[in-house]
């Protein structure tokens, strides 16, 4: 399973995840509290500057991840152009792009293991109350392991359907897919039990 962490090493890769997330929270709050076009234009340029620091490949990688926002930006700009409030449209669009770009920047420069540590830290109070967070950690590992497995099995079901029919596989594949997922869950549960189970 590939995480979204950038393979291009930046200085921010070495920083701790907690402060980065905290800084992101503060930055997002500031972005949403300001309404001046000049402020948002400067912030956007600065954010893009941050992306340029590790090199152009990193910038290209980062801007590619913003592509999903274009429909929203287009709609907002047209909307505000029609309602004769183009400046507000530009502010909203720039704020959106900066906020998402900053959040992506944290994801790009933080390893999955560092994020797991943050989750572990945040769930400390739960452990104080006697709740076992081992479930959460094992659950995360299982999803990471089984997403590619299930994707592969789903593709196999589609192939099996195509081998029998000239039509494309439709929703009919979903029932055996659900059965398959439940069976796998049973097998893994048995395997965990056989290794001593979750009760501590």
């Amino acid at each position, binding site marked *: *399973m*590939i*995480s*979204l*962490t950038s393979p291009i090493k930046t200085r921010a890769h070495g920083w701790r995840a907690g402060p980065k997330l905290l800084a992101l929270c503060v930055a*997002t709050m500031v972005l*949403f509290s300001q309404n001046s076009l000049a402020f948002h234009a400067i912030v956007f340029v600065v954010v893009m500057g941050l992306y340029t620091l590790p090199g152009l490949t990193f910038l290209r990688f980062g801007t590619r*991840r913003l592509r*999903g*926002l274009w429909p*929203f930006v287009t*709609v*907002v700009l047209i909307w505000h152009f029609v309602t004769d409030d183009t400046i*507000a449209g530009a502010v*909203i669009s720039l704020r*959106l792009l900066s906020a*998402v*770009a900053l*959040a*992506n920047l*944290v*994801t*790009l420069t*933080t390893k*999955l293991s560092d994020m*797991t540590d943050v989750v572990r830290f945040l769930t400390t109070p739960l452990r104080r109350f006697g709740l076992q967070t081992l479930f*959460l950690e*094992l*659950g*995360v590992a*299982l*999803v*990471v392991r*089984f*997403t590619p*497995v*299930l*994707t592969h099995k*789903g593709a196999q079901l*589609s192939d099996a359907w195509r081998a029998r029919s000239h039509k494309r*596989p*439709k*929703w009919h594949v*979903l*029932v055996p*897919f*659900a*059965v398959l*997922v*439940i069976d*796998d*869950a*049973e097998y893994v*549960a*048995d395997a*965990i*039990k056989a290794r001593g*189970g*979750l*009760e501590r």
Partner: protein
Amino acid sequence: MERNLTLIALFAALIAALGLIPAFTLAFGVPITAQSLGVMLCGTILGAKRGALAVLLFVLLVAMGLPLLAGGRGGLGVFASPTVGFLIGFPIGAFVTGLMVEKLRIGSLGVTSALAAAVGGILVVYAFGVVGMAVALDKTIPEATLLIVSFIPGDLIKAILAGVVTAALYKARPNSVLSRA
């Protein structure tokens, strides 16, 4: 205990897998990309608590930076984008869906599940989705509703499918539908 954990984790993986397999195309050519069908199935099959936990685990992994959303999206950027409300609404939608399947007895299980999926997976999820979009794009609630109303027909088809799949699963293996076990 072990079984609950593995079911929750594997259904979270199922939501992810549904977003990654492009081959599934519904009737009328609507692709299952939004993964909302997976969210609905978590509720109708696993029930309220387990269903909501499965979806919550999925959302947590997206936040941690795994590209599990349709189109390989993921990471914290999704939580700053206009679609954030949907992500927050997903676990609650699955909970409501599961609760309705557990408590309601209207007609067959298929009908109940489809209705529950429509209420939980569409009404509840869209309520959060609209608020998220209104905040991110600085629009009023009616304006934000206008922006996403076109996605409802596709989701209605998915709600009906969730009912059909749950009913078929119940017919073949009643014990697997935990919301009614």
